[in-house]
């Protein structure tokens, strides 16, 4: 970087790039070159205010002044108006980014560095508080580390919300020479993208969390099972791993301590079920991603039969914040048995979609309207699905439910991974119910009958409901089938698909009584096919 060059931060996050951030960054460099302006463009992750992307941040007097959204064609005018001196006159001026109401109302513990830090630089990571937790952890005993996690009250952020401390203790206590830390980075739920953002924008936080988990449980090998759909996260993780290796943080002598830990990155292959922890382990072992019956739990017999700590990205990335500030500090956020913060993700038909890290306890309505600004289409919101494709559809009467694990469980819903997908009044809830069943049929691993067969029969019944010949009987049959799937399935795919189906049926019955044409005619024949159909090239025309 040349002396006196102005630093401009431009996100390289998937969504920011989808909105034009790469073109904006390239054009900015080219224009500054033409005009002889000294500028250093730093590519970061995104802070998560996506309606402002591409969001440029100009560093001035230690503050970052935001401009957004900035498309390449806006740049000449912006530079004329004094962009590089952070002029208030430049169009799109937002002031200091951290003072924007969207960020002021948040409390970022896990995602504090997102959009701030240079994800490929260990120095930048250190500058923003990184590796402090690792240094502290190297001076603590494994039991003290596990106790800190227990104190924090952290629960698995992937969706199941199992107390993390109990898992850590189980792996620590398991007598075995080879233990493993597995990061579940198969974030497949629609409406969720916090794992992706974190891996792209602050990958070292995840790796530091895995390192600490290794020190705490006696594991020396880590795996990240990353979904194939996230190529930018893959590149970002690879760069971060290389940089941490070079800095002596990963490998056979962590920061000179004599302790060792290594991480391998594995890529999934487009199977939703591999987000289920035992299916993920099967896949890591090189097999079909079918679910294993539990017990034994992976903490006792996981990868290759060895004790394995399986955690989602956000769970592991929360560990450095817990260890550096202490479990008590983390526990100070949240309500009841939901402690700490959760990065919620606003998606679907919402005006201000983005990442919102908050302590548990806010209501869904506050999240949708005060933070999210209501629908993107301007029409009234009608249904909200929280927690991915296996989450219930919530009608307006349930939007005052506080966002905590138990309050959601009490209404038959789940927070899951914190994804919130909003639908306006144009949504057809019969179609959503049908999709939920069809998705289960397409993604079922086939191991257990209620899920494999039940989901296909479920689609058929929902189609018959639309035909309306015996609506009462079919409705009863669907409820019965859902009960069987819920109680009889091996894992959450078959077990929780009934939630979106039955919630749609119960809260939006009118949509199931509407006369329709041939059921499912708007959908392709692939909807109910279990798995992909591979058409030989000769037939593909």
């Amino acid at each position: 970087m040349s002396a006196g060059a102005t630093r401009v931060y431009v996100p390289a996050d998937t969504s920011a790039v989808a909105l034009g951030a790469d073109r904006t960054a390239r054009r900015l460099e080219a224009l500054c070159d033409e005009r002889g302006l000294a500028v250093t463009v730093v590519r970061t992750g995104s802070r998560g205010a996506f309606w402002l992307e591409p969001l440029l941040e100009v560093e001035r007097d230690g503050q970052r002044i935001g401009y957004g959204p900035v498309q390449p064609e806006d740049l000449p005018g912006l530079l004329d108006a004094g962009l590089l001196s952070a002029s208030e006159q430049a169009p799109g001026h937002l002031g200091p980014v951290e003072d924007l109401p969207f960020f002021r109302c948040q409390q970022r513990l896990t995602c504090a560095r997102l959009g701030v830090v240079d994800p490929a630089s260990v120095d930048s990571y250190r500058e923003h508080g990184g590796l402090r937790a690792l240094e502290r952890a190297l001076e603590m005993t494994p039991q003290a580390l596990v106790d800190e996690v227990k104190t924090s009250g952290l629960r698995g952020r992937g969706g199941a919300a199992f107390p993390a401390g109990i898992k850590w203790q189980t792996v620590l206590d398991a007598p075995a020479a080879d233990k493993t830390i597995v990061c579940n980075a198969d974030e497949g739920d629609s409406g969720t993208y916090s794992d992706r953002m974190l891996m792209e924008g602050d990958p070292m936080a995840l790796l530091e969390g895995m390192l600490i988990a290794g020190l705490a449980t006696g594991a020396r090998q880590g795996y990240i099972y990353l979904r194939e759909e996230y190529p930018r996260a893959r590149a970002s993780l690879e760069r971060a791993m290389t940089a941490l290796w070079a800095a002596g943080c990963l490998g056979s002598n962590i920061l000179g301590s004599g302790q060792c830990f290594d991480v391998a990155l594995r890529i999934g292959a487009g199977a939703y079920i591999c987000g289920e922890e035992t299916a993920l382990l099967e896949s890591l072992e090189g097999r079909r991603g079918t679910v294993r019956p539990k017990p034994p739990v992976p903490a006792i017999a996981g990868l290759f039969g060895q004790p394995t700590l399986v955690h989602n990205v956000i769970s592991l990335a929360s560990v450095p914040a817990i260890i550096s500030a202490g479990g008590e500090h983390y526990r100070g956020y949240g309500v009841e048995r939901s402690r700490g913060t959760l990065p919620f993700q606003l998606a679907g038909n919402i005006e201000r979609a983005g990442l919102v890290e908050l302590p548990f306890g806010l209501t869904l309505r506050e999240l949708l309207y005060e933070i999210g600004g209501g629908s993107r289409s301007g029409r009234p919101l009608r249904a909200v699905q929280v927690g991915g494709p296996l989450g219930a559809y919530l009608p307006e009467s349930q939007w005052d439910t506080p966002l905590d694990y138990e309050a959601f469980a009490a209404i038959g819903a789940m927070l899951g991974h914190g994804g919130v997908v909003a639908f306006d009044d144009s949504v057809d809830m019969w179609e959503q119910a049908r999709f939920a069943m069809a998705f289960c049929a397409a993604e079922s691993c086939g191991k257990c009958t209620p899920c494999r067969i039940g989901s296909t029969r479920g689609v058929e019944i929902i189609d018959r409901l639309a035909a309306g010949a015996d609506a009462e009987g079919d409705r009863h049959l669907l409820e019965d089938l859902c009960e069987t799937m819920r109680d009889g399935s091996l894992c959450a795919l078959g077990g929780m698909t009934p939630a979106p189906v039955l919630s749609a049926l119960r809260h939006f019955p009118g949509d199931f009584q509407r006369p329709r044409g041939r059921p499912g005619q708007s959908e392709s024949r692939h909807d109910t096919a279990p798995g992909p159909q591979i058409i030989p090239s000769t037939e593909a025309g």
Partner: protein
Amino acid sequence: MSEKEGDKDMQGLAQLTAPFRTVAGGLLPALHAVQDALGYLPEATTGVLAEQFNLSRAEVHGVMTFYHHFRRSPPGRHRVQLCRAESCQAVGGRALEAHAKRVLDIDYHQTTADGAVSLEPVYCLGNCACSPSVRVGDEVYGMMNVARLDALLAELRGGAEAVP
């Protein structure tokens, strides 16, 4: 194909996958290596991997057909994936799917007659803050609508390379 060419293909495949023989759980990385290099998994893959990993052909076949990502026929020049998941449905994803199939005149898992585009469904690209989403190769596009999709597809069918 002559027997000699077939042998050569097998050797090429074996070279691609050999490094993964000693990797714990190396079958998936080996399949990825083949598809990354060739764009699909040729028929000979099953036999080569069965031999290298000391598995039955049925086991290898079972793994490669389980995962949606792996394909057993060559793709078109561009692999276009439309997101079918809920966030995209909430902002017009279904209409976009129907439109794409209509203008390309193919269904999912098919390739256009000019060999330019293979159309595939995908369940979530993690781009849900700016749905609907489309992926071409490793590029993700957000806030898609019919006009933008038409322009994108026209560009893909007109030129040989993906648009920037």
